[in-house]
C-alpha cells in the first residue's frame, strides 16, 4: 500500500531586489502510511507553498521530500491534489464522469477497469446521479466531491488537500468534512491536509501541525489528536485541543 511521506529540512524562499525572502524555514515532517496530518497556520504563512513542494509543482530551495523512500522530483499521480479553487480545478468542458476518467485515461487502464473505478468513486462521493452533468451545473460542494473522486480514482499514495473546503458555506463544509472521513475510512489513503480552520484540523487530523506566522515559517508544534472517532465539538477534550492550538497561533 505505501504512502509514507517524509519531508526533510525543507526551506524555501525567493530573492527580490537583492534581498532574500524566506517563506519556509527548515520544515521536518514525517507522515505514516494511512495517517491524516493537518497543518494549520495563518494566511500567507506558506502552508500552500509546502503542499506545492510535496506535490512537485515547485522545487524547494533546500531539502527534499521522499515518498516511500523515493525523492519527489516532479508532479505525479501518486500524490494527487484537491485544490481550494472550486472554479478552475475541474475541467469545465468535461462531464463529471469525464473529469473522473481523466486521471484513469492517463494511467492507460482498460476500459472495463476505468468504468468500474468511475462507478465506485462516484458512488463513494454520492454523485452517481450527476455523472452526466457539467461542472457549471454543480454546487460548490458537489464540485469538491468531484475533485475528491477524481483524485482518489487514480489510487494515489498520498492525498494533498489544499484548503479544499474553505470556499464552501459553513453547512456544506460540515457535511463535506464528515463525508471525507467516511471516504477515507474506505480508501485508507495518507493525507496531508492544509487548513486555516482550527476546528477542521482537530476534527480530521490524527496529528495537527501548527505553523508559525511567516516569513520563514516553521512547524511550531505537532499535536497528536488521540480522540476517538467520530469526533465532534462536544467530544471530551476536543475544545481543549482547539484552545491549545489557538494559543499558539495568537
Amino acid at each position: 500500500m505505501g504512502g509514507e511521506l517524509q519531508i526533510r529540512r525543507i526551506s524555501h524562499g525567493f530573492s527580490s531586489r537583492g534581498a532574500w525572502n524566506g517563506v519556509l524555514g527548515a520544515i521536518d515532517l514525517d507522515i505514516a502510511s494511512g495517517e491524516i496530518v493537518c497543518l494549520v497556520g495563518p494566511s500567507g504563512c506558506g502552508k500552500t507553498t509546502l503542499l506545492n513542494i510535496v506535490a512537485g509543482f515547485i522545487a524547494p530551495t533546500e531539502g527534499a521530500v521522499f515518498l516511500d523512500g523515493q525523492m519527489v522530483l516532479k508532479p505525479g499521480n501518486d500524490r494527487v491534489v484537491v485544490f481550494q479553487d472550486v472554479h478552475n480545478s475541474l475541467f469545465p468542458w468535461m462531464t463529471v464522469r469525464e473529469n473522473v476518467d481523466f486521471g484513469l485515461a492517463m494511467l492507460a487502464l482498460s476500459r472495463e477497469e476505468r468504468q468500474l473505478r468511475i462507478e465506485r468513486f462516484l458512488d463513494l462521493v454520492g454523485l452517481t446521479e450527476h455523472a452526466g452533468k457539467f461542472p457549471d451545473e454543480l454546487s460548490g460542494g458537489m464540485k469538491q466531491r468531484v475533485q475528491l473522486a477524481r483524485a482518489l480514482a487514480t489510487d494515489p499514495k498520498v492525498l494533498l488537500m489544499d484548503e479544499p473546503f474553505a470556499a464552501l458555506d459553513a453547512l456544506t463544509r460540515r457535511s463535506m468534512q464528515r463525508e471525507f472521513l467516511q471516504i477515507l475510512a474506505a480508501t485508507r489513503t495518507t493525507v496531508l491536509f492544509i487548513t486555516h480552520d482550527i476546528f477542521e484540523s482537530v476534527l480530521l487530523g490524527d496529528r495537527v501541525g501548527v505553523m508559525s506566522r511567516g516569513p520563514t515559517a516553521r512547524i511550531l508544534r505537532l499535536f497528536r489528536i488521540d480522540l476517538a472517532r467520530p469526533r465532534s465539538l462536544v467530544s471530551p477534550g476536543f475544545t481543549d485541543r482547539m484552545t491549545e492550538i489557538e494559543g499558539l497561533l495568537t
Partner: protein
Amino acid sequence: MERSANPKRSMAPKWWPSLTRDQLISIAIFVGSLAFGILFWQVSSLFFNPYLLPPPRNVLSSAVETLRSGELIESVATSYIRIGVGFVIGCTLGVGCGLLMGSSRVIREFLDPLVEAVRPISPVAMIPIAIVWLGIDEGSKYFIIAYGVFFITLLNTLAGVNATPLVRLRAARCLGADRWSMFFRITLPSSMPYINTGMRVALGGAFASVVAAEMIAANSGVGYFIMQARLLVQTERIFVGLVALSAMGFVTDRLFRYVTSIVFARYLRLSA
C-alpha cells in the same frame, strides 16, 4: 416565465414558436430599430438630391431588378466563396501558429518579432502586392482575406493559451498528464472561448478586406458591383450593394454564432 403556462398560448398555431414575454419584447425592439433606421433614411432623402441619397423605395426597386437579373445573387455568392475559402485558410494557419507559439517558448520568442513586424500592415495595404504575386483572380482575394484572418486568430489563440488557469494545468499534471496530453486535452480546450472570439472578429474583418480587394482589382463580387455602379453613377445600385453587405454581415455573424454554439458547445461553458 409563468406566462408560458398561460392557457391563451394554445390559441396559437402549432408551428408558431412559443416565445416568452421577454423574447417578444426583444423582437419588437429589433424590428422597431430597423424601422427607425429606414424611416430616418426616408426622411433624410427628402432633403437631398436622389442622385446623392436615393430614397429606400428606389433602392428597393433597383434591388428587385438586380435580383431578377441574377446579378446581385452572383456577386454575393462570389464574395461569400472568397470569404469562405480565405477564412478557412486564415483560421487554420492562425490557430495553428497560435498553438505552436503557445506550446513552446522558443517558437513563441522566435515568431513574435516577425508577427509584430508584419501585423501593422493592414490587409488593404497588401492588395497591390497580392495582385502582383497572384493576379486579379481568386488567388489574390483568398490571400488578402486569409492574411487578415491569420493575425486576428493567431493573437486570440495565443491569448487563450496564456490564459489557461494555472490550477487547471496543475490539476492535470498531478493526475499524470504528460506534455502532449496537457496541451491537447487541457490547454487547447481551455483556449476555445478565445479562439472562438478570434474567429468571429476575424470574420468581420474578412468582409471588410474582401470588399476592398474587389474594389481595387476584380471583375466580380459585391465590391466590384458597387464600384461598377459608381462608374456609371447609379447611386441606387451603390446602395443595393451596401445593403447587401450589411445583410451578408448580419446573416453570417448570426450563422457563425449559431453553428459554434452547437459545435463548440461544451468548450464555451463557463468555468464555474
